[in-house]
């Protein structure tokens, strides 16, 4: 599905190369939930933006179903961290409908899809609200519905719950897992939160502070996962020691 091969990103400063990402290679299989875990400033968001086609990279390859990534595309939909990603001049419904409209879907076909995904994220009663009338959690739900509605090959999520309070974050994490299993989506999810990575992912790709790939840790804990269940703490300790080193 997604292949990242020997990807480098650097800036040239005073004849020195300043590396942001160094020699990153990994794959994501269809239907897999992979987390990119690393400390702040390690380049995980940059990596995700490179895969999304929002930023150029210096060397290497990014392939989605065999096709090289040249720019942003609807096969890779991004959900951002910021609460300001919804178009504030459109209602929740119109925000989710807009991508379908741009991509040439007839109005009656749009209606069913929009309602289906808004219901999936639990916003079916808020279709006529404007973004400023929604809470942060609801905004992220709407953004998720907007990304899902195009049925992308892979969903790129950049710390989408990072600005939420702990309770809302937990709720949205479990709902995301539900949606993931319902839609059989492929998800690449950036986070700096070890617990979040363990709760969500099938595999955890760890980046070091210098932007190198540190380790890829499989996560086969039984779902649904909870911090108290067996294996959770051990995995947490393992990831923590790797990150701290």
């Amino acid at each position, binding site marked *: 599905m997604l292949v990242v091969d020997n990807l480098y990103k650097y800036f040239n400063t005073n004849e020195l190369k300043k590396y942001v990402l160094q020699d990153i290679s990994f794959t994501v299989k269809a239907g897999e939930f992979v987390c990119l875990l690393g400390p702040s400033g390690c380049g995980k968001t940059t990596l995700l933006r490179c895969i*999304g086609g*929002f930023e150029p990279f210096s060397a290497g390859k990014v392939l989605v179903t065999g096709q090289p990534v040249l*720019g*942003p*595309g*609807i096969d*890779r*939909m*991004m959900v*951002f961290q*910021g609460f*300001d*990603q919804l*178009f*504030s*001049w459109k209602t929740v419904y119109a925000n989710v409908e*807009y*991508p379908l409209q*741009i*991509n040439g879907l007839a109005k009656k076909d749009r209606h069913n899809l929009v309602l289906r995904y808004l219901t999936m994220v639990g916003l079916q009663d808020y279709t006529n609200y*404007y*973004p*400023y*009338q929604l809470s942060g959690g609801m905004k992220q739900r709407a953004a998720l519905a*907007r990304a899902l509605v*195009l049925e992308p090959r892979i969903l790129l999520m950049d710390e989408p719950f990072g600005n939420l309070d702990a309770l809302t974050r937990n709720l949205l994490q479990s709902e995301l897992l539900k949606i993931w299993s319902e839609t059989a989506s492929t998800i690449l999810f950036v986070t700096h939160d070890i617990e979040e990575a363990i709760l969500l992912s099938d595999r955890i790709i760890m980046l070091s502070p210098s932007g190198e790939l540190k380790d890829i840790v499989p996560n086969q804990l039984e779902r649904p996962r909870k911090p108290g269940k067996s294996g959770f703490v051990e995995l947490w300790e393992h990831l923590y020691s790797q990150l701290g080193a």
Partner: protein
Amino acid sequence: MLMLVWETLARTVFFNPTVFPSVTAILNAFAEGVASGLLIEKTAYSLLLIFNGLLISLLTAVLLSSMAIMSSFAENIVTTLNSILHPLPGIALLPVAILWFGIGEASIIFIVIHSVLWPMVVNFMTGFKTIPRIYMDVGKNIGLRPIGLLWGVILPASLPYLLSGTKIGWARAWRSVIAAEMVFGAASGTAGGLGWHIYMTRYLFDISGTFAALLAIIIVGILVEELLFNNIEKHTVIKWGMTL
């Protein structure tokens, strides 16, 4: 209150009623002007010039500002033009306008465009530049390409700035059209607008008429502000929670 003070002042012996007419005299002249249709005709004529000038400026400003955000070369040109032309008073360009466009509507519209365009460009460029990167990313992600991005993201996202720029443009247009008309008058067969009317009433020493024309300017200003701009804002940026 203001009217009461004015009326009292006008009725004292200190002021000559010919040059400082009372409120009643002004209102009378205003009512006469409206009844005879003269004042309305003059106002409509000036408004038509403003409308033409504003429309051309609006489109040009959108074009210049979008070019400026797409290439730094275009941005340099636009900012340089802006710093050269923005401080130039429109009236100072009148001789040039007359040379280029002759005496008539074209010259007045040219002056209006000059007075309106640069403040609009400054506002529009600020608006375009302050669009959150996330909007542009989302726009590209869902499949919008340059023209679609302009129409679907850039313009609505910077609407608060577009509106404030247009408001400033409108006020500037009013001023410059009156000023230009006072110089051109009803030349080359045109009927002449409010500016010419003000000039003529003063010339004929109909000072109540002069003030009636000023009153017309004020009333139109309030109507446009209250009815047009406030309504547009109520149905767009305020409804969307996008006020600056």
